[in-house]
Each structure stands twice: as structure tokens, then as C-alpha cells.
């Protein structure tokens, strides 16, 4: 098995007196999709923000390729190869596909003070990158991003991350606001990213979507990793139950709280 690209070792995060994350230990390998599951308030967003350089862990280590790294800014995380795509794609609705694809790294032609934005190249590369990811409906780089469907926007954002050399792709609820068909597009692209050897961290509520692409699953409850299992180790019903907060969820929660009360606030080791 390949070595993990990105690993969290015993990461804690507290905001003032409030502890949000407890001893999070996770790893993700190239060509692997790690599904991060958890209810609202479980600490998923905080965890994403730590991995994408928005927040710093209070304690614990972030490792890339086995060496500890610090990610002081989102920019630093991006330079380290960690790209985060948010629910609405983080794109610019009133910009053309070509222009928004190359924001900040615009291709130019000409020389000296007469360098001009190279619309043709930008549009061509952007359309090709999206089509290579399997979205063939995007053919015109002059279209405005706001005119794309939610799934197409997600795909554009993912294609952009892949094109600019992301090694770890964090997808924050990419399918939450999408219809069934749109979500399928996004899942196909997640698989394509995986096939290209990216490590994908996929945050979702939908167990169907998680089962479709996930290799490895982690369930967050109250800021701790409550379950960490591989594909096939749990049935869809068990995962649904964990995520939907069924009977076993309630008992698990009680168990964790009891354990933490008895162990100095430390969560139980993942099952």
C-alpha cells in the first residue's frame, strides 16, 4: 500500500474554552477516496479548515509525504498541493469559464508592457480540462460560469484543481445541493480524480454517494473520529444508521461521552 500523502496525527482544535476536535488521526493515500461523514456540528468544517490552511491545529501534527508541515494560509495549503472545492464551487458567476479557470494565473501573449490576456488559449485549456474529466457538455469557454448547472460548476472547480497540480482534493459537500443526475456527474469526476492518483477527501451526508466512490470512511461525532473503516467492512444500513443518527448512533454517542468523561476528555480509539 502506498504511503499516505496527507496525514493528521492527534490533531486537536479548540476555540477559546470550546474544544471542537479531539485527537483526530486520519490518513489519505494517493488514488484513494476518504469519505468524511458526520452530522452538522460534528466538526467536519473545522477539520476541513485545518487541512486547507484556514485554521491552525491547537495541537497535533499535519504530515505531508511523511514530513510534518505547517499550513499557515490557504495559499500555503494550495502550494503544498491541497485544493479545497466548496459546495458552490467557489467560482465567479459572472466571469467566463476561461477567465475564471485561470484567475490569478492568466495566460498572456505578446511581450513587455503589451502582454495581453490570451482568451483563446485560456478558453481552449479550460474546456479541454473539463472535457477530459468527462463533462462533455461544456464546449464554449466564453460562457459565464453562472449559467452552468451546479454539477458543472463543481466539475469546473475540480478540473481546475486537478489542472493546477493538486495532489489532495478536499470536496466539501459537493453533492449536497445537486439533483441525482448532477450528483452522478460529480461522482464520476471524483472517480476520475482518483484514477489519476489524487488523494480525495470527500465530505458528504449522502451515504449512497459515499458508498459509490469511497475506499475508506471516517465518521465524526462530537469532534472525534467515532468510526474508521474500509470499504466493505460495513453495510450501507450500518453506515446510514451511523450517519442518520439512529439507535446505534445514540448509544455510540452515550458511549463516547462516558468514555471521555472517564478518560480525561480523550475519545476512545477508533473502532
Amino acid at each position, binding site marked *: 500500500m502506498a504511503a499516505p500523502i496527507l496525514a493528521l496525527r492527534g490533531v486537536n482544535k479548540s476555540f477559546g474554552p470550546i474544544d471542537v476536535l479531539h485527537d483526530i488521526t486520519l490518513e489519505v493515500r494517493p488514488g484513494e477516496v476518504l469519505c468524511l461523514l458526520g452530522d452538522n456540528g460534528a466538526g467536519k468544517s473545522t477539520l476541513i479548515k485545518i487541512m486547507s490552511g484556514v485554521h491552525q491545529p491547537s495541537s497535533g501534527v499535519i504530515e505531508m509525504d511523511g514530513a510534518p508541515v505547517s499550513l499557515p494560509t*490557504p*495559499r500555503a495549503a*494550495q502550494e503544498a498541493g491541497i485544493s479545497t472545492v466548496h459546495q458552490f464551487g*467557489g*467560482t*465567479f*458567476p*459572472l*466571469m467566463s469559464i476561461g*477567465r*475564471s479557470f*485561470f*484567475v*490569478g*494565473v*492568466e495566460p*498572456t501573449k505578446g511581450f513587455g508592457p503589451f*502582454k*495581453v*490576456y490570451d482568451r*483563446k488559449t485560456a*478558453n481552449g485549456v479550460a474546456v479541454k480540462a473539463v472535457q477530459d474529466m468527462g463533462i462533455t457538455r461544456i*464546449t*464554449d469557454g*466564453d*460562457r*459565464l460560469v*453562472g*449559467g452552468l448547472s451546479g454539477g458543472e460548476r463543481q466539475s469546473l472547480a475540480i478540473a481546475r484543481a486537478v489542472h493546477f497540480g493538486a495532489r489532495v482534493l478536499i470536496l466539501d459537500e459537493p453533492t449536497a445541493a445537486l439533483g441525482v443526475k448532477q450528483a452522478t456527474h460529480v461522482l464520476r469526476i471524483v472517480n476520475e480524480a482518483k484514477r489519476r492518483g489524487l488523494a480525495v477527501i470527500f465530505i458528504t451526508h449522502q451515504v449512497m454517494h459515499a458508498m459509490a466512490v469511497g475506499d475508506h470512511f471516517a465518521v465524526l461525532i462530537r469532534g472525534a473520529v467515532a468510526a474508521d473503516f474500509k470499504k466493505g467492512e460495513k453495510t450501507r444500513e450500518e453506515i446510514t444508521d451511523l450517519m442518520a443518527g439512529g439507535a446505534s448512533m445514540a448509544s455510540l454517542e452515550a458511549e463516547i461521552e462516558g468514555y471521555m468523561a472517564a478518560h480525561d476528555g480523550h475519545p476512545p480509539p477508533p473502532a
Partner: protein
Amino acid sequence: MSSISLGGLLRRPEAGAALGLVAVLIFFAIFGGLTFLKPAGMSSWLNVAANLGVIAIPLGLLMIAGELDISVGAMVPFGAMTVAVISGHYGLPIWLGIFVALSFGVVVGLVNGFLVIKTAVPSLIVTLGSLFAVQGIVLGLTVLITKSTSVALTTEGPTKAIFGDFVMGGQLQVMVLWWLALTALYIFFVHFSPFGNWIFAMGGDKVSARNAGIPTDRLTMILFVLSSTSAAFVGMCQAILYNSAQVAGGQSFIFNSIIAVVVGGVLLTGGFGSVVGIFFGTITFAVVTQGIYYTDFDRNWSSLIIGVLLLGAVLMNNTFRKMALSYAPKKGAK
């Protein structure tokens, strides 16, 4: 891809502004005859458009980037008064007056930009504050130094010819040439150089733009400096043109430039617009305010026309923007 089609033109940000300009021209041609399109008539609205346009374009860029600067209303008299006091009242060299007037523009722009970046206060409020503060400085200092609210200034030679003279038979202000040259420069920077892309990205989504590596803070500062310096420049040129500077006046530039920008198709919340659109919007505004003199209407009605025009332009621009958003190439085409 580069073929010109009617639909393609209508989806551009300046489509509404261009149609509005045509409508206004037709309106005044019917009611006022073609006098305002003859050289003498043209210079009347071109002069208005030029002074407004030099301020409206940088203000429009700020609005595309999602900010607003209303302190331009105080920067025009500030620029005029600075050059008049230094070179008129004290009789120091004109280049020093010009240099100091423009430097004050840079300083006020830096202060505006700094406050907007460092505090979470909306730029409308920040620049409302600096509008009043600068007005106070202009009035207070001018009366303190010159014991008057109006200062005379005489300039001659190349300075007068470059900044404040009439060209082409004595009707057209030299500002018109500045305006055309600056518009061309802005078109290049905003629509052809890569930097223009950054302004649109910033107005579209500031956080994403920053994450994409765009120096949003620095760009905000530059845009504020550009707008207040442009306003100081216009004030300075007016003082040189009219050989005097008043402490009042300039407030009309606030609303007039915002109207020109919005009629020009810039989205108030940022992220959409074009320099050519602002250019058309400025001409439209100038034609309405000046064209009324060539009709039989009482000029008191011109504000009504401008108000209706503004609302009509906003609605039309919304429609065109929706068209642009929903545009997709037809299946099988090309």
C-alpha cells in the same frame, strides 16, 4: 468563436448602455433637431462627459471590484484648491501645485483603501466619512490661508495648454483628449491585460479571489488611489482652465458618476461591467443634461429624464445580464 452576432453583442455588459445612448440621441434629435450633433453642440456635452468620464471610469472599476468611493465629490475641489493656493495664492511654480494636488489624491486614496481593508466598514461609509473630512479640510484651510472661499490662479504656456485650455477652435476642453486617451488606456488594462481579470474576480467573490492568489488588498488600495487621484486631477485641470478655484462644487460628481457607471452596465454588487459601457453611460448622461438646452423643454425637467433613464438602464442591464448568464451554444451549432 469570434464571429459577431446580434445575440453576442447583446450579451456584452455595454449592450444596455449602447442602446440607451441610441435612444437618448434619437429622443433629442426628434425634439431638439440635430444642432447638438454639430461641432458647437457636440463640444457642450463632450466637455461635460470628459470631466465626468475621467472620474467615472476608475469609480466604475471600484464598483466592479465591489467597492464604492463617494469621496470623489470632495477630491475635485480639493485638487482645484490645492493647485490654486500653492501656485496662485503663494505664487509658487505651477508644477509644484500640480504635484501636490495629485499627491493629496494619492494620500486620500491610500487612507480610504487602508480603512476599507483593515476595518470591516463598508466602503460607502468609509468614503462618506472622508468626503466630509476632506470638505472640511478644504474649507477650513482655504479660509485660514487666503481669507476667501475663491482663489484665483493664472497659468500660461505649455501647462495651460496641456491641462486646462480649449482646443479645436476654442470650444472643446483639452480634458476631452485626456478622457479619450485614459479610456483607451483603461480598456487595455481592464479587458486585455491579465490585471483586469483580477478586478472582476475580486468583485465576483473576494475570498475565492484571495485564495486564487490575487493580491486583493493591494488591488483595493490601487483602485481607491486611482479614483481619488483622478478626481483631484479633474479639479486641478478645472482650476487651470477657469483660472480660479472654489471651495464648493464637486458634489454633483458623486451622483453623476455613479449614474454614468450604472447606466453603463456595471453591476452595483460587483463582478460585472466594462469600460466601454461606462464610456457610453457617461456620454448618455452628458447628452441628457446638455441636450435639454436644444429642445423646447424647460431644463428643470432634465432630472426627471435622468431618473427615468437610470431606472430603465438598470432594468435593461438586468435583462441583458440574465441573457448572458443563460446563454449556451445551441446544440449542433458550429
